[in-house]
C-alpha cells in the first residue's frame, strides 16, 4: 500500500476512534489497535506504539477542557497516578517478553470488559460516608452542577489504589488508556460520582501513557509514519467528542454503537490471537 493511501485510511479510522473514545471515556486505543492489526495487517508492536501516542493526545486534548470546568479532582488524580505510572512502567517492561498472540487475546478480553462497562447504568450516588485515609489525603471534594456545587466523599482509597496499579500495567502492556479499569476502580470501589471519575480518569491517562511511552520510544515501537495519522485523527475526533459531552447530557445510543463495535473487534482479536495470526 502506498504511504498516502495508508495515511488517509488511518486518518479517517482514527477520527472515529477518537470520537467514540472521548464520548465513552474509554479512550481511542481500543479501536485503533484492532484497526491497525486486523484490517491493515500492521505488526502489533507498531500498533501499540501508535495507539499510546494517540492516547496521550486524546487525554490531554479533552482533559484541558474538563480541568478548566473544575470537574476533575486533581488531588485524587495525582495520588492515583503513583499507582498508574508504576504499573505502566512494569507493563511496558514485561511487554517484550510476552508473545504477541497472548497480547492479542488479553487485548480482546479487556475490550469486552470495556464494552460491558460502557453499557452499565450510571446511577449517580453521592457518597457521604467519611473515610480516614480520604480525609488525610484531602480527596473529598465538590464538583459543579446546574444546582450549584455538589460535595462528595471518597471511599476505600487503598482498594482503588491497587486497582489502579493493575490498570496502569494493562495500559503499559497493551498501549491503551485502560479507561474502563480506571473508571471501574473509581466508580465501583471508591464510590466517586460518574462525572468526576470519567474526567479524572481522562486526566490520569496522559501521564500513565507517557510513563510507558518513554520505554516504547526507546525500543522503536513508535513509528512516525503511523503515529502521525493516528494522533492527528484521534485528536480531531476527541475534540469533537469533548464538545458533545460537555454540552449534552445523554449519548445513550452512542454507547450501544461503541459496545457492538468493540465486542466485534474483541472477538476478532481473540480469534486471531488463538490461531496465531497476530
Amino acid at each position: 500500500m502506498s504511504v498516502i493511501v495508508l495515511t488517509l485510511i488511518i486518518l479517517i479510522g482514527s477520527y472515529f476512534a477518537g470520537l467514540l473514545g472521548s464520548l465513552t471515556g474509554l479512550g481511542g486505543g481500543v479501536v485503533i489497535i484492532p484497526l491497525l492489526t486486523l484490517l491493515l495487517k500492521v505488526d502489533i508492536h507498531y500498533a501499540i506504539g501508535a495507539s499510546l501516542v494517540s492516547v496521550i493526545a486524546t487525554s490531554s486534548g479533552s482533559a484541558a477542557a474538563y480541568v478548566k470546568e473544575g470537574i476533575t479532582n486533581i488531588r485524587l488524580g495525582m495520588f492515583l497516578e503513583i499507582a498508574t505510572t508504576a504499573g505502566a512502567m512494569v507493563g511496558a517492561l514485561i511487554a517484550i517478553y510476552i508473545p504477541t498472540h497472548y497480547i492479542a487475546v488479553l487485548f480482546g478480553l479487556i475490550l469486552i470488559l470495556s464494552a460491558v462497562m460502557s453499557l452499565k447504568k450510571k446511577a449517580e450516588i453521592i457518597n457521604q460516608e467519611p473515610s480516614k485515609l480520604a480525609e488525610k489525603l484531602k480527596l473529598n471534594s465538590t464538583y459543579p452542577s446546574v444546582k450549584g456545587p455538589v460535595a462528595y466523599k471518597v471511599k476505600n482509597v487503598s482498594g482503588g489504589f491497587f486497582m489502579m496499579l493493575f490498570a496502569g500495567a494493562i495500559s503499559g502492556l497493551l498501549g491503551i488508556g485502560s479507561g474502563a479499569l480506571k473508571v471501574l476502580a473509581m466508580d465501583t470501589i471508591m464510590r466517586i460520582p460518574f462525572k468526576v471519575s470519567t474526567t479524572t480518569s481522562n486526566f490520569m491517562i496522559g501521564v500513565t501513557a507517557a510513563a510507558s511511552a518513554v520505554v516504547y520510544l526507546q525500543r522503536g515501537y513508535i513509528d512516525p509514519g503511523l503515529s502521525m495519522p493516528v494522533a492527528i485523527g484521534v485528536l480531531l475526533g476527541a475534540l469533537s467528542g469533548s464538545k458533545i459531552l460537555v454540552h449534552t447530557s445523554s449519548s445513550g445510543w452512542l454507547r450501544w454503537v461503541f459496545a457492538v463495535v468493540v465486542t466485534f473487534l474483541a472477538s476478532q482479536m481473540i480469534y486471531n490471537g488463538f490461531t496465531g495470526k497476530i
Partner: protein
Amino acid sequence: MANKRFKDADMQSIIGWILRAGVIISMSVVFIGGLLYLYRHGQSHVDYSTFKGVPDFVHSASGIINGIFTLRGRAIIQAGVILLIATPIVRVVFSAIGFVLEKDYLYLCITLLVLLIILASMLSGHAG
C-alpha cells in the same frame, strides 16, 4: 489577602492551559512533518507487517535533530511525538510548583514521586 493566594482554581486554569498549549504545539509539529513526509514519500510503498524497529534517524536524539535541519518529515513528526509525550509530564512538573505555592507539602511529595517513577521508566527503557 485571601484572594491573593494561589488557589486550586488557578492551578486548574494553568494545567488546562499547559495541556492545550502542549497539544497544539506538538500536533502542529507532527502536522508539518506529516506534510513533508507525504510530499517526499507519498507514492512510496510501506510495509509494517513485521516489526523492524524504526530507522536510525528517528530513533536517536542526534538523528532527529539532524533530520529536522535536513527537513526529513519523519524526524520532524518524531520530534512532535516527543513533545506530545512531554506534555503530561510538564503538567506534572507544574502541579508540583502549584502545590509548593499552595504550601501543600503532602501533595508536593506525591507529585515528586510520580515524576521519579516516570524518570525510572525513562532510564529502564535505555537499559532494556
